[in-house]
């Protein structure tokens, strides 16, 4: 029996630009198994980030079905989808997207504010997540007091703090120097191997794709 956690069936996405319909993804179907590390590669405009957004539930397909852990997310209402994201998806962005006015601790705590956890439980979870990424000693630092690599590690701590079903990472090393990029990739690899996290990562970097177990290539909206 298949252990797939993500199942895409005939997923298409197109955008309206003026009166034109611009197709971005064409009838994609594939599964991702639990604990898999999938890299999505392809040239700019191939639709990889759009595909990642659809899986993460921040965009909706024009047609087709996206089932994650048995839930057809395309059918969820706006607010149910927001709740679903809070419980099931951890985000890692290219430019980290930390809130500059919040400390590392507060940034990591943000997704937990959407849960019913007590303050003490939240604290425990945040401290654990920050220790996993090796930043337990930087909790009270603001993003501007951290290096790019450290900021991305805080973002990863934010992504894992709710123990989500999947982690989506959009070019997580795209804004980092080589050494920091290696650190981040090693961290993602550890999360996948040691903590059995399912990760889907969009990347341009072949070295980054190497650490992923599976790589899918997209071109003009088709899997190649």
């Amino acid at each position, binding site marked *: 029996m298949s252990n797939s956690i993500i199942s895409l069936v005939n997923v298409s996405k197109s955008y309206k630009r003026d009166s034109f319909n611009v197709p971005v993804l064409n009838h994609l179907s594939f599964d991702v198994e639990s604990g898999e590390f999938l890299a999505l590669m392809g040239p700019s405009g191939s639709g990889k980030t759009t595909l990642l*957004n659809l899986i*993460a539930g*921040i*965009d909706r397909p024009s047609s087709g079905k996206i089932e994650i852990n048995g839930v057809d997310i395309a059918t969820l209402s*706006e*607010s149910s989808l*927001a*709740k*679903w*994201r*809070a*419980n099931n998806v951890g*985000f890692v*962005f290219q*430019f980290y*997207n930390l*809130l*500059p*006015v*919040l400390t590392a601790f*507060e940034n990591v705590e*943000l*997704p937990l*504010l*959407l849960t019913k956890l007590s303050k003490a439980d939240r604290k425990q979870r945040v401290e654990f997540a920050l220790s996993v990424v090796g930043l337990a000693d930087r909790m009270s630092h603001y993003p501007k007091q951290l290096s790019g690599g450290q900021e991305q590690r805080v973002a990863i701590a*934010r992504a894992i703090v709710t123990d989500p079903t999947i982690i989506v990472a959009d070019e997580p090393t795209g804004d980092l120097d080589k050494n920091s990029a290696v650190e981040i990739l090693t961290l993602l690899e550890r999360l996948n191997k040691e903590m059995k996290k399912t990760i889907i990562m969009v990347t341009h970097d072949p070295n980054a794709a190497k650490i992923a177990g599976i790589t899918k290539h997209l071109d003009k909206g088709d899997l190649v």
Partner: protein
Amino acid sequence: MKIPFSYTLRNFKQRKLTTAITITGITLVVFVFIAVLMMAYGVQKTLQATGSADNVLVSRKAATGEISSIIDGETVDVIKSLPYIAKNAEGKQLISPEPVVIINLNTISGGLSNISVRGVSDKAFELRPRLKIIEGRQINFGTRELIVGESIPKKFKDAALGKKLKIAGDFWTVVGIFSAGGSGFDSEVWGDALQLLNAFNRSTSVSTLTFKMTTGEDFPKIKAEFEKDRRLLQFVPKIEQKYFEEQSEMMATFIRVLGTAVTVIFSLGAVIGAMITMYASVANRTVEIGTLRALGFRRRSILAAFLTESLAIAIIGWAIGMLLSLLLVSYKISTLNFGSFAELEFSFSLSGSIVISSLIFAVIMGFVGGFLPSVRAARLNIVTALRAV
């Protein structure tokens, strides 16, 4: 599901200048708004304090103020015969028929202004026990002497102690200055009623008549008497305090309406300022909004966070405006009272309702200024917002 308030507050630090300018705009509008209401309330409070709840003031029905009222000597006698007038220890009725006239005097700052001159009998002082001579002495009845309210010498150069005032072609000496506890009497000049009637050739016709009731419960009976007696039909008795309160209405309403209209126009500027600040705030934080939404915060949480920010700006502006307006408390100004056509000194007075209405006004400014930008923030598409790096 709330975005922490600390996020809102710390964002102020990110845009110190625009936030400070917006707060200043709201502060100024709130300050003007509060000052106007304090002024109107000050007029009201001063004139309310002028009367006593135990005294009845009789005036001509058609008269809008004391100077346009006239009560002839015969009517005065009829009123004196009523059984409801209190007596002093010597058994004399506490009643004071008073002619009130307006004269022009040179002000210290240059120009002319009106002051009320009230002719009184010795009973007038028993009727208004709060009135005290603070400098000089009481007038000798039967002479052309005057005492002036304490705010008069501050504004009129010829009204100082020992000076002579020209009234109806004759010179009257100022022999004393009195304090009436911040009431409207402080802006009046008092002299002997009979001397004043004589000087103005008014025979026995006074302007109004004030008497103390034996008991406050008698007022309905007094009123009934005036409605029943044909000789008194043209006159109306009013509780003195209420009479002066009504005299303040026109002026207080004028200040309030004009002032509020001006502040509402000012507030449009402040609202537009708040709106620009909030739109800028949304534009600067588009990616943050996208991130928060991606993390699972709902549209309404975003809406609430930005509205809270706008309301916080408004409330800070209100608090500063409120503190500034406290500097005005007890500050006295003098102006022409439309009710009496004479100069009236009053102080800015603060009341609970002014505090509350100014807060509501500030909150409305914050809400109106913040609403559209907050809706825009809440309606941002997540994917588009995240791309706005």
